[in-house]
């Protein structure tokens, strides 16, 4: 791979890690999501740094950025925009909504009504929006970071599985380590350094990297492993809903992006394992109350990571 590109990637990560302290894994996953041209769902309690992550990302990438706080009275037009009558030209002209940006932060997605949610999710899937019969392309790259509070909180509309599927990865930041938290409390690091973040990766480089991801090689043995994992999600006794083919594609794509992030041009089982929980956690449903992430971890532990054959051996 181009050493220049790789240098840009690693210095981007370094910058991000200076802002989001002690969360290297999550930052890498977020970056993986961008490289794989997928959308990211950040699920966490308020105040864990979800928004900071989004801020840092758009600054590092130097892309235009819009943010919408989702509330229960949000309408699709508030996101997409609307046709407005122009008296001077006696015609309707389309006023673009906040969604027309390269990085779109949908804050607290699950507070909006399903109607507003699905407007966003449609745009994410199609890469374009249609208003009054006219199609408007969204910018490229187009990247949505949605944040969500855990669903047990009141006043939320949980996203159904079919819609969660649109997000390539789901991560959660979690509480920081005590030592890291100390650094944050002193106020000199973390969010405070957000202003000093400068663009590292150009838009052109990003598009170039995104095209490299599918080139990352995936061997037969690795596909055997991926298929064993998928089979396990479909036959495990704790699993109610297994991984869909779309989910399987997402798993391979994310593994490739992760491998690329590590500077490798082929995928290893480690890459699959690194992204597995984030790819699969929100796409499978357990028979009991078990959380998807926990279930995904259980599946990861029950499948042999080496060897041939696609049948899962429990």
């Amino acid at each position, binding site marked *: 791979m181009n050493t220049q590109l790789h240098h840009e990637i690693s210095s981007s990560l370094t910058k991000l890690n200076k802002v989001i302290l002690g969360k290297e894994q999550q930052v890498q996953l977020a970056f993986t999501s961008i490289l794989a041209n997928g959308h990211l769902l950040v699920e966490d309690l308020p105040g864990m740094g979800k928004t900071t992550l989004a801020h840092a990302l758009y600054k590092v990438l130097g892309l235009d950025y819009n943010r919408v706080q989702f509330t229960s009275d949000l309408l699709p037009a508030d996101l997409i925009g609307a046709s407005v009558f122009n008296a001077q030209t006696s015609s309707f002209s389309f006023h673009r909504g906040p969604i027309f940006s390269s990085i779109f932060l949908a804050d607290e997605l699950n507070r909006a009504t399903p109607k507003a949610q699905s407007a966003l999710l449609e745009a994410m899937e199609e890469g374009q929006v249609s208003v009054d019969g006219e199609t408007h392309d969204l910018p490229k790259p187009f990247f949505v970071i949605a944040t969500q509070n855990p669903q047990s909180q009141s006043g939320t509309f949980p996203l159904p599985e079919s819609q969660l599927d649109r997000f390539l990865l789901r991560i959660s930041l979690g509480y920081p380590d005590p030592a890291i938290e100390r650094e944050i409390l002193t106020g000199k690091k973390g969010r405070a350094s957000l202003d000093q973040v400068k663009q590292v990766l150009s838009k052109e480089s990003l598009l170039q990297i995104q095209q490299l991801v599918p080139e990352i*090689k995936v*061997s037969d*043995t*690795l596909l055997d492993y991926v298929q064993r994992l998928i089979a396990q999600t479909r036959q495990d*006794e*704790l699993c109610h809903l297994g991984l869909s083919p779309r989910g399987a594609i997402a798993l391979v794509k994310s593994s490739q992006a992760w491998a690329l992030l590590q500077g490798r*041009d*082929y*995928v*290893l*089982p*480690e890459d699959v*394992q690194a992204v597995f929980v984030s790819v699969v956690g929100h796409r499978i449903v357990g028979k009991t109350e078990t959380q998807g992430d926990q279930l995904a971890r*259980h599946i*990861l*532990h*029950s*499948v*042999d*990571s*080496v*060897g*041939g*054959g696609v049948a899962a051996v429990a």
Partner: protein
Amino acid sequence: MFEKGFPQDKLITYSGMLWLLAAQIVVMLPLIFYLPIWLLPILIFSAVWRIRVMQGHNAQPGNLIKIIIGLLGLGALAASGVKVVSLDMMASLLMLGFAYKALEVIQRRDGMVVILTGFVLIGVLFLYNQSMLIALYGVLSMTVLTGALIAIQQSKSYAILPNLRLSSMMLLLCLPLMLLFFFFAPRFEPFWKVPQTSGHAKTGISDSMTPGDIAELSQSDDLAFSVKFEGKRPGQNELYWRGLVLQHFDGKTWTQSDIPNGKGIKIGNDRLSEKQVAESIVKRGDSVEYEVIYEKSGQPWLFALTPVLEVKGRAFLGGDFRIISYRDINEPKLLKLTSYPNSLREVELSDYDRDLALQLPENGNQKSRFLADQLMASSASNQEYINRVLDRFRQDQYFYTLRPPTLGSENSIDDFLIDSKRGFCAHYAGSFVFMMRAAGIPARVVTGYQGGKWNEQGQFLAVHQFDAHAWTEVWLEGQGWVRFDPTAMVAPSRIEQNLETAMESEGSFLEDNFLSMSKIKWLDGIREKIDSAQYAWRRHVLGYDKNAQQNFLKKMFGELSVQKIGLIVGGLFAGIILLWVMFLGLARKRETEAEEHQLYRRFCDLMAKKGVTRDISQTPETFRRFAMQELPDLAGEINHFSQAYSSVCYDPSIQSKHQSYIDDMKSLLKKLNR
């Protein structure tokens, strides 16, 4: 919820703890029927405490608290009246430890202690009960216990069913081994006598008779023994299962003459040797051959059709034609007997025996003695006198009842014979012998069982405790001892049919035994089937003793020698192992994997032998680092091998050099193997 100071991967998980608790309850449940019942709550208490600790509600008890509750348990055990040197005490102590251990089960090895103790307790249960049902329960306990053994080794929780399935599978695999042990393990006599408790251990007929005892027995529907006849079955009224001979009468209680102190029997048998006993019988008529399985009674007395001439099994012919076991019967006992019911017994009566058979207390029961003198005076012969006494029972207003009035202690014979005239077999037999002796005719009381219930399904006769009976023997010139049953005069249906029929109008059959299933008529069909299955269990499984084993092995393999047995057992053992290897090997199906994977598996097996085990989710890279760190001496080889494998599997750019990588792996594997 995490314990400090213990390595995390060696701790028992929450679900493992629940498994353990379930297994403990299953194991303890049947034992509390024989041991103090509060042992179970102790287990629950300990386990709940432990579970609350795991949930973070309570603190783990300190040593002081442990000592205090331990002492409390010991105190309770002492207070509950369990005999100090007894099986009960040993079992109770084990149970107490078992129950308390739940409190400090933290690591896997604590769990192992509990589980191994559990296996011992399953064995202990068989000291108390060996029925088929208990055996089935034992299998269930083993399955659950093995399930718990699996569960405590797991670092994650799995559903219940897969664990049970796995443990059943493991037990099933062990089944051939169990059968091998059952058929071939040498049967030893017990090395020591297990101290039984005196209280509830003895059942059945006791070695003395005070009118009242047998009425108690008649309230029990426990099985006394079961009989399988070879050839024709004697008629119901001929089935006198003779057990004890009660010679001595003190005015109230009849006892055996050769145990004046009641301190166990004299095995040597002073008066007559076994040979002499056999010689004093004049063999007459046809033989009756039969097989008896005696139930546990805690006593040595055996019951048979008299006189028995041949005994196959661990028992001897005692004086007075009794059959006596060498040891108290604490587990079902099988005997093969041959009787000649029409034989004459002791045609010549020694003076000593005559004196024994004429003994009466000096005083008391004057009315009865007077009655005897009167009847004797008007009788021409002994035979006529006997008939007159029997006629009196038949014709006077005598009643057969299980609810007799209480008799005085001074003149109990008078009270019954002259006044109340209400009683059951013990009253009739006792007073009949008294009348004989008062008239100078040698006579004695005999106790045992009469009749039995024929099981058509299993073709055997079941004799229950309620079949207990007392009758008499009178010595007649030229005929020896002749059986007389005065009860038959009063209640012929007791002898012709059974106690239940005889008591139909009174309604006293098993009246105190509310739980008895024997009274429920419509269950008879099922009961017969169950009884028959249990008979087969006792006969073929419990009855598989030293003799049966020798016969069986001889039938199967011809004449036996140590070498031959060794060869057979060794061969079967090898066969079983082969079976396991085939079964477990086939289940894996690794042959289909590509060569590099097979090599890697061999590498992992090799590492496991050196103590570094790969978790299946560990990738070659993670395992490489782990193994290199654990085995620094082999780090170079491990590194090369893993890298080669990784490249072959995942790096498409080396495909042209595929074979050379595989060759490298092979040679590295050889090096590692050295």
